[in-house]
């Protein structure tokens, strides 16, 4: 095992163990807290794969944005209404069937995808340049459409938030 292997297993263990806690812990706040480590572990694996930009974006978007929103939702509702929100399990059978199917789909996708394998020496220093070029050439349409989608979501959120005032 070389250093990269050790680091990879370290991040993989962090990701898996914390993800396990996210689903098994009874307190929603703790779930959100362990999700933090899951995101970090994934970011670490991105770094090992030389996807530096993706790693930082993973932290900025998921940890710095989405998880904060999640926490806010949980913390504020939890405290203000004085109701302890706790998670329980229900509908075990349909849930496990659905998850099993999803898992199968993901694993088969993982097996049958022709992954691009590249020796470490050929990987460029930074992936930003290539990513940027691809985003405004090959994937321009999708990029712009996503921008419009986000704008619509933003306007929608604002209009929903404003409705109460009238």
């Amino acid at each position, binding site marked *: 095992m070389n250093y990269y292997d050790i680091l990879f297993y370290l991040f993989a263990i962090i990701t898996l163990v914390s993800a396990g806690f996210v689903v098994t812990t009874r307190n929603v706040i703790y779930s959100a807290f362990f999700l933090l480590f899951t995101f970090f572990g994934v970011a670490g694996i991105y770094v090992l794969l030389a996807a530096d930009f993706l790693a930082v974006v993973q932290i900025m978007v998921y*940890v710095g944005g989405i998880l904060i929103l999640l926490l806010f939702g949980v913390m504020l509702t939890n405290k203000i209404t004085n109701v302890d929100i706790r998670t329980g399990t229900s509908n075990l059978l349909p849930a496990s069937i659905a998850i099993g199917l999803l898992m199968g789909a993901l694993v088969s996708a993982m097996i049958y995808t022709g992954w691009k394998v590249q020796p470490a020496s050929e990987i460029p220093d930074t992936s930003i340049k290539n990513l940027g070029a691809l985003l405004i050439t090959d994937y321009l349409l999708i990029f712009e459409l996503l921008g419009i989608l986000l704008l619509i979501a933003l306007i929608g959120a604002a209009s929903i938030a404003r409705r109460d005032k009238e």
Partner: protein
Amino acid sequence: MSIWEVIIISLIKILLIVVLMLLTVAYLVYFERKISAWIQNRKGPNRVGWHGLLQPFADVFKLLLKEDIVPEKANKALHTLAPFIALFVAFATYAVIPIGPTIELFGYKINLVVADVNIGVLYVLALTSLGVYGITFAGWSSGSKYSLLGGVRSSAQMISYEVSMGFSIAGVLLLSQSLSPTKIVEAQYGWMWNAILQPIGFITFVVSAFAETNRLPFDLPEAEPELVGGYHTEYSSFKFAGFFLAEYANMIIASMMITTLYLGGYQIPYIDKLGLNQTLTVLLQVGAFLFKTAFMLFFFMWVRWSIPRFRYDQLMNLGWKVMFPLSLLNIVWVAVLIMVFRL
């Protein structure tokens, strides 16, 4: 260099930075009190040591010897963890800030930065966005409404100002064509400082930095008349010291970032034309970086003791309706610089 040499050299750098930071923070508090005294025509701390120079150590001992109180309604685990998150974020950010050019020491080429990563600027942004966690957890876990309100205010403020901060940085990135702090500094050769080329972006970045560090005039998270102490109301002893330390460490980061991105980092205009020998040049450059940072720190304190606090709606209006459009305008200006003046 073998991997062990890299690890050892990095560890030495990290140790140096941590020790320096702790000392700097201790004395920043001293200078804050001296400068506030000077501005308000008082004397300030002058009892412990010569002109009160040992005051920071007295403060530290006082904080450490205090009783550590955890409120009954608090969530113990998160209450303890919160100050450490704040500290971790504050210290981890220093890794990517270059304080000088590459030097040769004992046969090794050493960058005067812990980690010269390609995406350093994004790394800083990502870590500062983590800073919200320390404050949110502190506010929530204390089990007190003042703490919770302080925490919520702080998070909302940081998230809002991150937007204009990000857009101001975009202008810098466009000009230097790199996300690496070292390259950004090198791109500001001579008088091509970003503060001069894009003054609007400079202003929006500085204002956002004030808001991000929760300093006056944006210190609403801990507005004493309304919120007792804000998110750290329920903290005492060492944990309180942790937040205190993190706040000042964040101020130093903000100053260093302003220096790196807008004030030319360690560059002294045209020093290489003077024909000084290499060691002297490097020393002068490190000195220049520290001087610029120190000036920004002084500026932070100067503003704190001169300007009253904003009201919360004013703060949000300023962030979204003034700073955000201004930072967009700055990007247009940078585009003009690039397309018309071919910079």
